[in-house]
């Protein structure tokens, strides 16, 4: 595979999603309804990224005790909800994950 061509095409494909809309839309005012809808983008996208990683394994539901991501995610959600502390959530969540994996 030609690595230069691969990198160039991937770079262009990525920039196409990041730059043109930012430049174009910063020149005009969006309708208020659109701006309100866009506020749901961050939570919706994050959820769509996380949930399949946690509950699926090779495309199949994986709701068993040796899936350490399940209990560790629940603990992380609890810590984040109670403390809103990102670093603490990461440290406790990772620890829970590694400990659970050692046990099961």
């Amino acid at each position: 595979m030609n690595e230069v061509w691969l990198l160039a095409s991937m770079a262009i494909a990525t920039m196409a999603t990041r730059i043109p809309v930012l430049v174009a839309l910063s020149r005009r005012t969006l309708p208020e309804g659109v701006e309100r809808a866009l506020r749901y983008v961050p939570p919706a996208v994050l959820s769509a990224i996380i949930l399949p990683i946690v509950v699926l394994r090779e495309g199949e539901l994986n709701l068993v005790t040796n899936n350490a991501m399940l209990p560790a995610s629940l603990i992380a959600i609890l810590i984040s909800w109670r403390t809103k502390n990102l670093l603490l959530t990461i440290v406790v969540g990772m620890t829970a994950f590694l400990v659970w994996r050692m046990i099961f």
Partner: protein
Amino acid sequence: MPSSPTTQPSSARTHFWQGAKDTFPLLVGALPFGLIYGALGIASGLSPAATAAMSLVVFAGSAQFIAVSLIAAQTPAVVIALTTFVVNARHILYSATLAPQLKGLSTGWLVPLGFWLTDESFVVAVKGFEERNQLEERKWYLLGSELAMYTNWFAATGLGILAGQAIDDPGSWGLDFALVVTFIGMLVPMVKGRPELLAVLVSGVTAVLGYGLPHRAGLLLAAVLGVLSGVLAERAWPRSKAGTP
């Protein structure tokens, strides 16, 4: 303290470093992810130089992960580029969200700010912009966050490339959970009311059900349905004027 034109340079520096500082917890979460990417890049047959260069010119974690798995499966470059576009399509929504808040900024600023835009810096900016209404403050704040992510990602990739030449199966460590737990820590504080909760649930479940769709199109479908249900829920359960907790 009243702001005057003479305080501009130090103010730029202050906001730049505050942006970097607010991004710090996310750097911790992205570091193992970058490490694994570097190691998997080597394992896929990509040269060390190309593995490192991808982190500099593409700079998109999940797309880079998918790309190296496609490279390992001998996928043509055109297909990899198209997949990259679809996986990164969520950035279109991010830039549409940030654009009105950066209204009036020159193209010379918008292009680099767009180039370095990631999930993490987007979320940091959404929160940081609430406390900053000056364009001047916002651009330095976002740039600080983005450059912190960029430096961290490149350093992590480098370490991963070194590790990749020494370790057999880097994917089996379970370090990919670092990304999940980071995103959970970002997501939970965003759920400020029932409309957000519904958006999160609809989007998550759709992403799971649509996981088998080609080019990870399920991710985009999930985001769109999540946003829609949030908007509809907001209409059904109007927020109080005082603001929800």
